[in-house]
């Protein structure tokens, strides 16, 4: 009965000591600690309130050639939170100038005799100009403008027609948005920011720590010690995973739930599990990179190369079904892809373990694969 304990002691004692060393080393680097705090705490509310991918307060200008009650009604249909009226122009040329200098991103142009046409049952044509030098704006503005105009067109705007219309029912689209009924984008952005920071730190900290040992030559000392390569690698992965998981969970409790007042529907420890799986997978990638690059500088650049596709092809910006088929495999290889779905599931949809299991399994599978590959390369590199 004593033998297994000594083996365990032999194995875990040095591992714990090495993990402790990594954490101490981290906390002694003041700039790193400061930016860990900034990344997980300060930047989360900033991202939640600053960035918006939805159409919010899009500055729009109006060219009203009609100036009738009917045209004013239509203008009022373009209202916050989607649109914000910033000015009126007398001619289309003037409006185009506003689009050019960025004061407006959308211009609504109403033709003369718009009201008359509406009253007499002819279909008038209004024009919407969108500044599409902005990536998402064209799509969103087009979608919002067409639904506003379609809805407005279905509702009669003069008393006479509305009386007549009572005889005719019309078909409406009763929309309900699940899990985030007010389409509060802060919820998404806040959680996404935590995940982004977790990805960044979980990948760069272990990778750079290993690269630093190589650069300084201290890795040689570890290798001649009775430690196995797997223990050395674990001592890089585990402390940083712990650190990132703790920081993310704290950020969810303090910043997301506390400061931003976003309700967390699921269990907080489920969120921690999701983050931990993500962190291990990213740490595996970081270590793998560190076995390729020899100096911290090289590792940093390689990490940039890997990070940008992993982050962009995570499904947060473009859902997988919209991506070209050739790019989709990259998405299934991104740990962030599974983690975002899982994290949104926990926080917004209150998903339980049965829903999370396959997603966490996906991340874990990637984590195991990258770590094994890293271990393989690490062993070979030093023999």
């Amino acid at each position, binding site marked *: 009965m004593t033998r297994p304990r000594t083996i365990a002691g032999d194995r875990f004692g040095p591992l714990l000591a090495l993990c402790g060393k990594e954490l101490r080393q981290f906390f002694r*680097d003041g700039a*790193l600690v400061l*930016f860990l705090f900034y990344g997980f705490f300060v930047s989360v509310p900033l991202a939640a*309130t*600053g*960035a*918006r*991918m939805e*159409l*919010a*307060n*899009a500055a729009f200008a109006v060219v009203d050639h009609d100036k009738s009650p009917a045209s004013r009604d239509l203008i009022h249909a373009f209202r916050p939170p989607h649109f*914000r009226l910033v000015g009126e122009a007398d001619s289309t040329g003037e409006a185009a100038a506003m689009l050019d200098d*960025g*004061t407006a991103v959308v211009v609504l142009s109403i033709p003369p005799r718009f009201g008359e046409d509406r009253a007499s049952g002819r279909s*008038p044509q*209004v*024009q*919407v100009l*969108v*500044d*599409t*030098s902005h*990536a998402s704006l*064209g799509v*969103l503005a087009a*979608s919002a403008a*067409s*639904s506003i105009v*379609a*809805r407005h*067109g*279905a509702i*009669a*705007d003069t008393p006479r027609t509305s009386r007549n219309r009572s*005889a005719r029912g019309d*078909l*409406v*689209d009763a*929309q309900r948005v*699940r899990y985030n009924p007010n389409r509060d984008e802060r*919820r*998404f952005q806040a959680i996404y920011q935590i995940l982004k920071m977790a990805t960044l730190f979980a990948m*760069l900290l272990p990778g750079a720590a290993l690269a*630093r040992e190589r*650069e300084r030559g201290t890795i040689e000392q570890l290798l001649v010690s009775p430690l196995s390569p797997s223990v050395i690698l674990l001592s890089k992965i585990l402390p940083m995973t712990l650190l990132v998981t703790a920081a993310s969970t704290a950020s969810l409790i303090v910043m997301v739930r506390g400061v931003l007042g976003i309700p967390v529907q699921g269990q907080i420890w489920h969120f921690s599990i999701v983050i931990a799986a993500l962190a291990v997978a990213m740490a595996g990638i970081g270590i793998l990179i560190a076995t390729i690059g020899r100096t*911290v*500088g*090289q590792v*940093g*650049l390689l990490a*940039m*190369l890997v990070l*940008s596709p992993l982050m962009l092809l995570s*499904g*947060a*910006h*473009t859902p997988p*079904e*919209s991506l070209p088929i050739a790019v989709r495999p990259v998405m299934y290889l991104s740990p962030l892809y599974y983690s975002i779905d899982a994290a949104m599931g926990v926080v917004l949809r209150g998903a339980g373990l049965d829903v999370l299991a396959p997603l966490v399994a996906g991340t874990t599978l990637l984590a195991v694969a990258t770590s094994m590959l890293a271990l393989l390369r690490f062993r070979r590199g030093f023999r």
Partner: protein
Amino acid sequence: MRRLRDSIGRIAALARREVRETVRDPMFCGLAFLAPPLMMLVVGFGLDLDVEGIRVAAVDHDRTPASRELVERFANSRSFDVVERLDSEREVDDLMMRGRIRAAVVVPPGFANDLAAGRATAVQTLIDGSFPYRAEVASGYAGAVVASFARDAAAVADPRPARLRESAAPIELELRYLHNEPLESLWSIGPSTLMLVLMILPPILTAVGVVREKERGSIDALRASPLRRSEFVLGKWLPYFGIGVVDFLVLWAIALTIFGAPFRGDPWFFLAASVVYVACTSGLGLVVSLVVRSQIAAILVTLIVAMVPTMLYSGMITPLSSLSEAGRMQANLLPATYYNRIVSGAFLKGAEPSSQRLDLIGLGLYVAATCLVAVLLHTTRARR
């Protein structure tokens, strides 16, 4: 005059050493030139914001030709893909929870009868709101599909010409896209990516270049040399600035050829502004490098300082006019905001250089400020 010549000689010597060191590290050197174009390609092609093929479940309680026709409209639209046809709404919740569907359309019983009799009726669309951008687009398109169906149904129910019908005449909408007429995602994202990549990589290269010496201790040799503060800062900065300018030229070529973005502005003005921008971002890396002590910290700090605010406030994703007052103030503090305006002006808007002079001046002030801070922060004495 001689002092100036000596000074330039010392700067050149330091810069030459830095270049040699970079060239002799083939991986670092290769990555310095390969990483920016690769990053640009990934971001440009990966950040496709067209939402297509949203997975939808249809619950048809009515089972009439009219209800099937409505479901078919969803199936035939480019934006939706009807993946499930269900008999009850019970399964909808579960499918949405698991992320199998992003939206559901529920047609109520008696739908066709109500429609034919002219009674008010509603189709319900349920949308998964956890990814707001998708929800937004899905909601707009769902509304448009139902509205167009309603219009055609009204025409069938009341076959007189539109103006004699009792319901209101529809308003026709003509959408015109300015600056990016074919609504090509790459045209607008490509140039912004140029801004983003130049914001991230040159400062990382510069910061790592300086901190490497600190971490290895070789900076002590420089401390003992006759180099003055400003000479050290300039000599360290020049090579990375040069790499940044070469990277910029490559990225510009990618934007024009592979992305096929139109260039409508003045190329000379754009070149000048871009060189100033690269000077500014690599100068930022210099400032970071003088504050941090380890290369890990240099990479992480630069990345967070450069990336987080740029993605949020530069106008790349959210237009400046949609930002809150506080957001706009932060935007004005970022060099990326000024350069992003110059980029979209030069590529898509074809702006006159004279209208962008202020943005260029802003960038110039930034360069002056970073140089000043870098020189002041650098000490020739060992710390501690």
